């Protein structure tokens, strides 16, 4: 794993949980609990995690227990406790971003022998319990590549992006997608509609139809379940790039490519470290190069030229030479947000606070 993209903050020799597993190697299976905020067959965020869980379920000496549709309330605390008390789980993957504070923090303090691994990259050394780890992927790298494919494929030069909330993670995806598209097609613009929440199927369908009516011919999204948007795009005969998981099955004609998580790799690494009794990194991040995220296989509609450009960008990410955010960069009101000569690499903390939309995006953050 590349040290460049990963902060490794190891605090003295692993958790008690991992130590006990070294002692009793191979006898009882390692019970791992997965908790999802939505349905695990949502073609989106939760499915991506469930696919990762399915990968480690096949590992020797591992037993998994899964629970879906667990809200970010005391219900998730009770689910964690139930998995610990009734199922004997010693490692938990509560996967929703909103599970971290206060729920995981509270349970981690209460159950010191259990390892809590959370998706979101929120761990702060010294502030959070040592039996907590947090991981996240630079999925905007995959969005950048998908943006290139979209920029090469569009005929109207109008791309559409349906997003849940104007928060840094989402803005970063919108911006990377647009920068990717405009790197190969400077005339391309991305029109954004914010729906206001993570799962709003009706609004998402309305937004998709409204964007298509405006002449947009490639759609993408950042919502929990892209299903409705992908299906609407296919029905209306336009192209679409996916998000979270592979939605090619929903749009055999129009699915160009997509930005996908690759949690199976991340979870396998964690389980191997824990089974071997090795300390695991408390903060784990990576992009295309580290295998945290991937780009869906190109669809039939993608031209050879588009594939070539996208593959070139992917290769640059794999080399670690690609910097998406570098100056001079203007936002869509004309303000310079990154000065000339400044490079913000993926690990740059400034990117975590993104509050702008880059030039070429049609839309407002509030």
């Amino acid at each position, binding site marked *: 794993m590349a040290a460049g993209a990963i902060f490794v903050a190891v605090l003295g020799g692993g958790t008690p949980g991992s130590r006990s597993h070294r002692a009793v190697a191979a006898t009882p299976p390692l019970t791992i609990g997965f908790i999802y905020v939505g349905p695990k067959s949502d073609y989106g965020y939760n499915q991506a995690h469930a696919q990762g869980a399915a990968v480690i379920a096949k590992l020797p000496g591992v037993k998994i227990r899964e629970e879906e549709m667990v809200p970010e309330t005391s219900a998730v605390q*009770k689910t964690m406790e139930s998995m610990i008390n009734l199922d004997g789980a010693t490692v938990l993957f509560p996967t929703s971003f909103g599970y971290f504070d206060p729920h995981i923090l509270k349970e981690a303090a209460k159950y010191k022998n259990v390892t809590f691994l959370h998706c979101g990259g929120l761990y702060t050394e010294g502030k959070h319990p040592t039996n907590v780890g947090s991981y996240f992927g630079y999925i905007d790298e995959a969005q950048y590549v998908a943006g290139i494919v979209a920029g090469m494929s569009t005929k109207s030069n109008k791309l559409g992006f349906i997003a849940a909330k104007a928060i840094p993670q989402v803005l970063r995806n919108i911006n990377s997608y647009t920068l990717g598209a405009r790197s190969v097609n400077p005339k391309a613009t991305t029109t954004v509609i914010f729906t206001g929440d993570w799962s709003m199927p009706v609004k998402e369908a309305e937004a998709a139809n409204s964007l298509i009516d405006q002449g947009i011919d490639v759609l993408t999204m950042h919502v929990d379940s892209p299903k409705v948007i992908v299906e609407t795009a296919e029905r209306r005969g336009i192209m679409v790039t996916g998000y979270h998981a592979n939605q090619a099955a929903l749009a055999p004609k129009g699915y160009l490519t997509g930005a996908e998580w690759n949690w199976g790799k991340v979870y396998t690494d964690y389980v191997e470290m824990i089974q071997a009794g090795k300390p695991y990194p408390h903060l784990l991040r990576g992009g295309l190069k580290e295998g945290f995220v991937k780009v869906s296989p190109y669809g039939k509609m993608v031209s050879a030229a588009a594939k070539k450009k996208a593959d070139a960008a992917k290769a640059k990410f794999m080399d670690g030479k690609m910097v998406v955010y570098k100056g001079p960069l203007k936002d869509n009101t004309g303000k310079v947000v990154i000065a000339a000569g400044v490079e913000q690499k993926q690990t740059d903390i400034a990117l975590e606070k993104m509050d702008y939309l880059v030039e070429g995006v049609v839309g407002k953050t509030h």
Partner: protein
Amino acid sequence: MGIGVSIGVISPVTEPSPGGAAAVVATAEARLAARRRSVEAFAVPSAAILGALILFGIFVALTGRNPLAVYHEMYRGSFGTWFSFQNTLQRAAPLMLTALATALPLRLGLVVLGGEGAMVLGGLAAAAVGVHLHSPMSVKVGMFVVGALVGGAWVAGAGVLRAYRGVNETISTLLLNYIAIALLNHMVEGPLRDPASLNKPSTLPIGDDNMLGNLPGLDVHWGLAFGVAACLLAWFLMQRTTFGFAARMVGGNVRAALLNGLPVRRLIVVATFLGGLGAGLAGAVEVAAIHGTANASLVTGYGYTGVLVAFIARGNPLGVVPVALLLGGIGASGGLLQRVFDLPDATVNVLQGIIFLSILFSDSLYGRRWARKPAVAA
């Protein structure tokens, strides 16, 4: 909805006529009727729930699982261990409070679905006020009072529209829920946003020292005590005061209530306000005991589950407590059903739905067999 009107009907018993055997017979009959009612009040819902469990067992068997094994796991997950029982109590606590938003107006024949909105706004208001207060006690008291009042005012708004403008309260409270959630999102992403809450927009945290703790000896927060106390108070109010009597009379027959000179409009507004107090308090407790801040996680659906609780309890605040425990237990066991039997999450919703329908159906059983008997004897 016709159900709302039929619920909570207690025939305004005739004045005891002066003198003679007729009066004795009348009071004896009234006493018998009262006993019949109290037996029915227990037997009919119990039979309905039992019927629902049998139906659900058939449903489970159709999916290829052994219903008895499923019920055994459900018991283990909800009441079977000390941990599970506390899990059930914790889940029941907010339902008791949100159910009152529906239960109290139900006694007046109003079907209010606004618990969700009142809870969300109660939580938001509580968080907004909590950060400006200082000592742990004042923070808590301030949050509960403000949260409850905002929830009360929110549902009372629909009550006012109903009483003075004839706006259907079911529709208005349902729509007000969406407005409340939109308001919450707007406030936590805009004016009340803690700038440090980057990817999960939230209000400023109230601080760990100001959080509401657990009941002594239990891993359940104080919200449970508030829930039980609120239900007891509401029951006392509805069964043992003139206000409650008047309210039930409105539910029984609005015309009769009007003819008797009862201030029907005012009763509607007050009942919706009192119900909203409960849901608003639920939101404040959610913030004070669980989240420590207001954000989109406040939108939990407790308000809607509360509607279910209130209907199953037939609007009786005392019935809300056991019904909330039942639904809390079903919720607590839902996870285990997923994990052990690989049943989908919606399984427990199916059970809740069957119980709900079965209770609604059982409404038609009240007074049937027993009422006919004396007629035959005579």
